[in-house]
């Protein structure tokens, strides 16, 4: 079960996620986003576009490191992984 925390900004739109960190079964970041979508319908389109790519101004960190695959979110997760989803720093 990966542990996921999302930015407070997203919790405003998805109060279902207020109690994060959540433990979710996911072997990849893509699976994690789908698991979050199941809990909070609409979530996936906030962090990804229609093609499933991470939006330009969104970051996902796995154990404090930015994910590598922003196109397909194929970065693997272990049961010990800690994931953080947040807006990218932009605008100064």
């Amino acid at each position, binding site marked *: 079960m990966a542990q996921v925390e999302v930015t407070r*900004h*997203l919790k405003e*739109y998805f109060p279902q996620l207020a109690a994060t960190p959540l433990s979710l079964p996911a072997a990849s970041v893509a699976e994690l986003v789908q698991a979050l979508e199941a809990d909070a319908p*609409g979530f996936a*389109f*906030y*962090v990804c*576009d*229609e*093609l499933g*790519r991470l*939006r330009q*101004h*969104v970051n996902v960190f796995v154990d404090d490191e930015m994910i590598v695959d922003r196109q397909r979110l194929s970065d693997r997760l272990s049961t010990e992984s800690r994931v953080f989803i947040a*807006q*990218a720093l*932009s*605008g100064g």
Partner: protein
Amino acid sequence: MTKRILIGTRKGTFIVEKNGMWKPRLAGHAGVGVNFVAADPHSGTLWAALGHGHWGAKMSRSDDAGATWADAAQVKYPEGARYLSPPDPGEETVEGERHKLRPATLLKLWAIAFGGPGQVYVGTIPGGLFASQDNGESFELNRPLWNHDSRGGDLFETEGSGITHWFGTPASEGGEFAAGLHSIEVDPRDPLRILVAISSAGVLESSDGGQSWRSRNKGMTNDYLPNAEAEWGHDPHFIQMCRAEPDHVWQQNHCGVFYSSDGAASWKKVSHPDQGVHFGFPIAVDETNGRCAYVVPGVSDAKRMAIDGGLFVARTEDGGETWQQLRRGLPQEVAFDVIYRHALHISGDCLAFGSTTGNLYLSEDRGESWQTVTSTLPPIYSVRFG
């Protein structure tokens, strides 16, 4: 009936109502960019087109007059939707490749319109028209327009012609460099007749509810292409039909003001630069008199600002033969208000417009005199009575 004005701004949705005085209040989406807000005249539902900085474009709706809002069914390009656009600087091309074929993802929700009961239309960047036939429970891309020959043909099923005549649109407020659909006019007599306008493409008409589309750019001229009368590549900033006389259609274009008295079959340039009427973004047409229209001019495309620091609305009542400058109550010194394409609207004798400097101006006497309702709003993107 009490009038209500819906305001979309860079920092949220505002509602302005008259209770003795006209007064604005924040009505939702605090901190979020709101490109367009409008009320469905059939259902009363309020619709907002949001542009979250980080989280993308989202449709929002309120079924309780703006007391609460919720994300609606979302506008998404279907799998396989592709479009052609010029290569970016430094982008690799193969020999003979004039345009790049790109998968479509939603860059911007730009305009909302309503047809018959249950019909909601949304205009997007890159140039899409999305339609709902079920009160906004779902939206579907209009494929005949998406697949139009003028933009390269059916790119879902084929590689198309490889050439698009729809350009980018650097004038979009957010700087999205793809063709943008910003005007959707449904004929009040017949909801199957629809006009749309696309920045840097032109005007198209459907008379069968969107099953087929044809160019409506005859008589249009431009000053930035080698062929000033090219069929495509025109840059309408906004078009509007007269509600009572829908064959009277007006267009504020990048290259002047144009008027059609035959339902957009042909256009006539009615700019009068000598009277300050040429460049601008919005246009409003009197609801009953198709020969009467209003614009808020700026200096030029190179100087998008009020002329000589004095703000005025220009009105014609004779199909653009002559224009009157209406200045009473509007700032006449050091005014740098720019009025975006959706930020001027008319309802009966009332007109309202909002500016990028957060000023909202209102007239209750057909523009003869104006009051400043507020000067402290965020940059204003849209103003709609409803």
